[in-house]
């Protein structure tokens, strides 16, 4: 059995596709893609923050303080347009679209008198908000907030009201939220739902190609029959193939996590990213090991399932047709784990895949019940065992092996 395992693994390692899907994808390509996305997002954000904002102001005489405040802002450029005060909303829209200016501010004619009477003055900001990366609203608001604060101070002094009294007036009874969740639980809740999803996809993609190659691939190439005629029992052949697929799936996720840790440390030290610093402080190595432990039976479930489909298929094309539904049905239990109200309890602990996804979330949050982990490990292992048993049954059926 060990000979078959070694041979299958050697063949996989020599295959360029395995190299790409199981090694290069998780260690180089995925981090490069993630890094690239973060890099581009950061660039775009900085560009939006620093880009020159050209603007016009309608009814500029109505509120000269705003005009002055905007002119003081860095990278704001006041444009002059003919007949500015007669421009309609449609005219402004057309000019923003054509790039004549980035935004237009329409000041209310009664703005100053409204403010003098302690009323609110509404300024209209016309800009293209379709682009998610634009920072126009934030940058204009921060300029106007300066004036707001100044005016608010004047009003409070005029009516002889303190800031506390103002708060009491605006919101007589306030609710102060005190989050009992610590920093780790908070972060865990946010990323813990996504993490199992990503890890399980990685196991599935890492195991998929070897499963196809070792089952239907061998059938098609005519090597399975020669293997069946050696003095090795079919159960041993199934177990060897299962172990290779299991190892590859597990190796993929191991390499991914390892590469993420390495890349994070590089990013932390070289780029000094604060979020990563927080993450490495709250997630210990023992947590990572626990996540691995939980993923082992998951890799076993996927390996058995994929091998079953691969052995049953007549040819590569048919096997590939089985892969999409397997992926889809595998994700349903994972999606349960991110539904609101679904918590790790005595019932969910018995539902394969959902239980592991919930457990990983709890591990990351630091709230895992270790007793529950035993149930999860047991139920998932039982499931993997049942699937492997069926796989072995199929492999012993002539109608499956010589299906044509």
């Amino acid at each position, binding site marked *: 059995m060990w000979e*078959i395992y070694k041979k299958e693994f050697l063949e996989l390692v020599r295959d360029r596709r395995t190299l790409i899907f199981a090694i290069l994808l998780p260690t180089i390509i995925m981090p490069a893609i993630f890094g690239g996305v973060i890099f581009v997002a950061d660039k775009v954000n900085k560009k939006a923050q620093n880009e020159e904002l050209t603007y016009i102001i309608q009814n500029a005489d109505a509120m000269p303080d705003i005009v002055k405040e905007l002119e003081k802002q860095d990278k704001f450029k006041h444009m002059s347009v003919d007949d500015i005060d007669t421009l309609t909303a449609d005219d402004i829209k057309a000019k923003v679209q054509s790039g004549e200016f980035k935004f237009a501010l329409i000041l209310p004619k009664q703005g100053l008198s409204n403010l003098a009477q302690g009323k609110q003055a509404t300024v209209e900001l016309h800009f293209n908000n379709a682009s998610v990366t634009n920072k126009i609203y934030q940058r204009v608001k921060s300029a106007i907030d300066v004036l707001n604060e100044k005016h608010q101070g004047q009003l409070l002094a005029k009516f002889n009201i303190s800031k506390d009294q103002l708060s009491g007036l605006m919101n007589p009874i306030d609710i102060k939220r005190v989050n009992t969740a610590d920093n780790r639980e908070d972060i865990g809740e946010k990323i813990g739902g996504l993490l199992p999803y990503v890890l399980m996809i990685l196991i599935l993609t890492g195991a998929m190609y070897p499963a196809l190659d070792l089952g239907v691939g061998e059938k098609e190439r005519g090597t399975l029959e020669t293997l069946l005629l050696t003095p090795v029992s079919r159960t041993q052949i199934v177990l060897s193939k299962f172990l290779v697929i299991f190892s590859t799936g597990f190796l993929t996720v191991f390499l991914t996590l390892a590469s993420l840790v390495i890349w994070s440390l590089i990013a932390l030290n070289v780029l000094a990213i604060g979020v990563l610093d927080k993450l490495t402080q709250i997630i210990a190595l023992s947590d990572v090991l626990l996540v691995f432990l939980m993923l082992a039976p998951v890799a076993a479930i996927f390996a058995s399932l994929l091998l079953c489909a691969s052995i049953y298929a007549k040819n590569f094309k048919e096997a590939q047709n089985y892969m999409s539904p397997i992926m889809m049905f595998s994700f349903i239990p994972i999606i349960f784990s991110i539904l609101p109200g679904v918590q790790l309890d005595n019932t969910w602990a018995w539902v394969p895949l959902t239980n592991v996804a919930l457990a990983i979330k709890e591990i990351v949050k630091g709230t895992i019940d270790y007793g529950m982990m035993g149930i999860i490990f047991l139920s998932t292992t039982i499931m993997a065992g049942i699937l492997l048993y069926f796989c072995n049954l199929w492999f012993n059926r002539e109608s499956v092996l010589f299906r044509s």
Partner: protein
Amino acid sequence: MIEVQNLAKSFQYDKVALKEKKKKAQVEVDPREDERQFHAVRNVHFKCEPGKVLGLLGPNGAGKTTTLRMLSTALTPTKGTIVIDGQNVIDKPLLMRKQIGFLSGKTSLYRRLTVRENVRYFGKLHGMSGPQLEDKIDKIFDLLNIHLFENKKAEDLSTGMGQRANIARTVIHDPKVLILDEPTTGLDVISAKTIVDFIDSYRGSDVSVIFSTHHLHEVESVCDHVTLIDKGITQFSGTVDEFRAKGGGKDLYSSFLALVSSGEEHQTPAKQQKELMGEV
């Protein structure tokens, strides 16, 4: 010696096949079909002594491959016995595989392993190891002239090289019975000659060779005995001369046509006629 008696194999129809069968039922009647099963092999018998080569003949779909798969232990017979040196293959398939070498035109090597790695792998699966295995590999490679390309990956081999490597893989464990299922199909003349010479080299040895082919000139040149199967039943089993006599002493082709069920269903297509005459 290998002795086969009353061998039969039936396959259950799956749902799709059953549906198609019902559609065809009114058009064709095949004695091998019944309501639920296809009796691919119904009664096959022959024996092959050590040092002899038995040619297994039959038209396409006669049951040759199913028979050979049963002999090789890949399929379990529905009934009958296969005895090698007094031991029933069906009772102890794992043990008996050490006595059997199987090669067909469809089986191939592991593409990403070198020739030596392929042969070594099968040697290990047959329980061989260490210097004894390496010596054995060297001897076979000498015999088949494989050393020149032993470190090439199987995917880089020519058809002829591949078939020689396949032979080495088949005989690495010194089998007592060699089963060859159409090993020359699709090969060029030189590669086919290598196989035929290889079979010939076993004549007079302690190995029994069972060789299925459509090429009657190959039977003429290497076989001592012939067994002809048609519709899953042995129609003839005897020496090559006895077989020739069945066709009026003319040639093996005439004997073949005389023995296969003379019904219209065996109007031999042109391609098969050419194969029989060794033109393909």
